[in-house]
């Protein structure tokens, strides 16, 4: 039972880790609260499912998903930097628009991938079990993306992107337009989210219009859990933390299920998971309680 839970968490954690890396890129590196993910993640699932059903090679379908995810991010970036719409709102607008687009892509609200070719069946055909094929292919993809991601953030361009999130005034004075970096970062992050959606669709065997709901919070939860496990703030370590965070998050969720929570409660569980580490109660509230206790003691 526990073994099943662990492998299940590992498989899902890896599939969602790419989306979490995207959230890390916008929220942490770029310091931009991007909610596009709730739309770009199911976009990746919808596009890849639709293409796979139409007979496209799964790898090509995933590549298309990435490109369309990037475009979703670019749209949010355009709304924010060129049309001057507030960041949060720009993401919500794109996410809302994507809901209709995703339905158009799928043609209905749920698109099963039963008996279809997928990345997983291709690897299985090489002689692996379903589980081994899943773990192997997801692991390789995540490692490859992590290496590229880390490398990118240490290039001249990547440094400029990080500095934009850190100190936009300074990077402007060094010759970089922060707005361009924001657009670039949003594009990359949502490309990752879409790829993640494509993996999840193939893993669970269907794409669903509702699969993006609350995705941003799932991503944030993974980032936060990762940060509490790996405290080293260097990029290479931080991205490792995000991946581990995504896996641990899945483990916590399946533990919640085992504790008797119903699947429909999971969003609530996730929300609480995010609130606890993010909450910064008013300073001194604990002292305040102590003081009251002391007074009562004196009075008593």
């Amino acid at each position, binding site marked *: 039972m526990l073994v099943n839970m662990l492998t299940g968490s590992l498989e899902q954690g890896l599939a969602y880790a790419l989306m979490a890396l995207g959230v890390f890129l916008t929220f942490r590196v770029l310091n931009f609260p991007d909610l596009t993910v709730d739309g770009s993640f199911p976009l990746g699932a919808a596009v890849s499912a639709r293409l796979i059903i139409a007979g496209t090679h799964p790898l090509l379908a995933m590549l298309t998903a990435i490109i369309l995810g990037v475009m979703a991010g670019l749209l949010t970036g355009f709304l924010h930097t060129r049309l001057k719409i507030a960041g949060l709102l720009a993401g919500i607008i794109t996410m809302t628009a994507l809901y209709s687009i995703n339905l158009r892509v799928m043609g209905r609200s749920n698109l099963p991938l039963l008996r279809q070719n997928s990345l997983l069946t291709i690897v299985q055909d090489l002689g692996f079990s379903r589980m081994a094929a899943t773990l192997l292919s997801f692991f390789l993809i995540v490692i490859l993306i992590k290496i590229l991601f880390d*490398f*990118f953030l*240490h*290039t*001249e*361009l*990547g*440094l*400029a992107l*990080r*500095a934009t999130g*850190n*100190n936009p*005034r*300074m*990077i*402007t*004075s*060094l*010759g*970089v*337009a*922060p707005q361009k970096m924001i657009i670039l970062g949003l594009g990359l992050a949502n490309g990752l989210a879409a790829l993640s959606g494509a993996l999840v669709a193939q893993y669970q065997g269907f794409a669903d219009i509702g699969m993006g709901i609350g995705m941003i919070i799932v991503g944030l939860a993974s980032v936060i859990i990762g940060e509490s496990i790996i405290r080293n*703030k260097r990029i290479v370590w931080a991205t490792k933390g995000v991946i581990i965070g995504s896996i641990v998050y899945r483990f916590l969720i399946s533990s919640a299920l085992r504790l008797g929570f119903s699947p429909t409660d999971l969003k609530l569980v996730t929300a609480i998971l995010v609130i606890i580490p993010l909450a910064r109660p008013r300073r001194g509230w604990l002292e305040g309680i102590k003081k009251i206790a002391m007074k009562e003691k004196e009075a008593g």
Partner: protein
Amino acid sequence: MLRLKNIFKTYYPGEPNQQKALAGINLDLKQGDFLTIIGSNGAGKSTLLNIIAGDIEPDSGSVIFHGKDITRRPAHRRAGFIGRVFQDPLAGTAAEMSVAENLALAKVRGQKRRLNRAIKKESRTEFAGILKTLGLGLENRLDESVGLLSGGQRQALTLLMAVLGSPQILLLDEYIAALDPSTAEQIISLTGKIVSQKGLTVFMVTHDLRQALKTGTRTIMMDRGEIILDIEAEKRKTLTVADLLERFARLRGRELTDDRILLQAR
């Protein structure tokens, strides 16, 4: 090299809090000129620097750099030839990035940023070399987050970054005002060294009248958006702070009343 022609700038025009920041500024600087700028709060000193940097567009007038009109060019496209140190010691560096990464950001100032590894082995030796000139031991802390450095150390690093990637103009906006006296002294002498070594054209805003007369090659005093005094090299030597205050009173028909200036003038 850099000419400002009849620059006007008013904030919030037509509103009750309308504020005339610059009113007909004309300046002509040659390569290697070191201009110190003094004046009370609201005199327009920072606005002047922001217009040169491209953060603010003037309402009218033009900024000419080497014969080219750059008045409407945005800040990030001027960065190739303008280095800048802000008043806030934390404003010129990225706190969450390492010392070496900050220097690497400045090294490609104004250039197109590529997908090359930003910090190569050679650049580490180069960075260690320039950091050594500070004498703060930063050459051994290349991989530490800048956020761990003190304000003075960060401002020293910002100064190094501001002159990396060979800019021709250096803008210093009260860049030592927030530092303790000894660190400030150290940074001033470092500035002098770098500026003469690289032949930079400098605009330095300061509240310290004595320092304004002591440093650089030319001093201007601003008041209410105008340049009211322009003193060139030789004449500055015989001038005292008392003379400056006296001439201000005579020119403007009122006393110079700015606590920060007067405190330092005593």
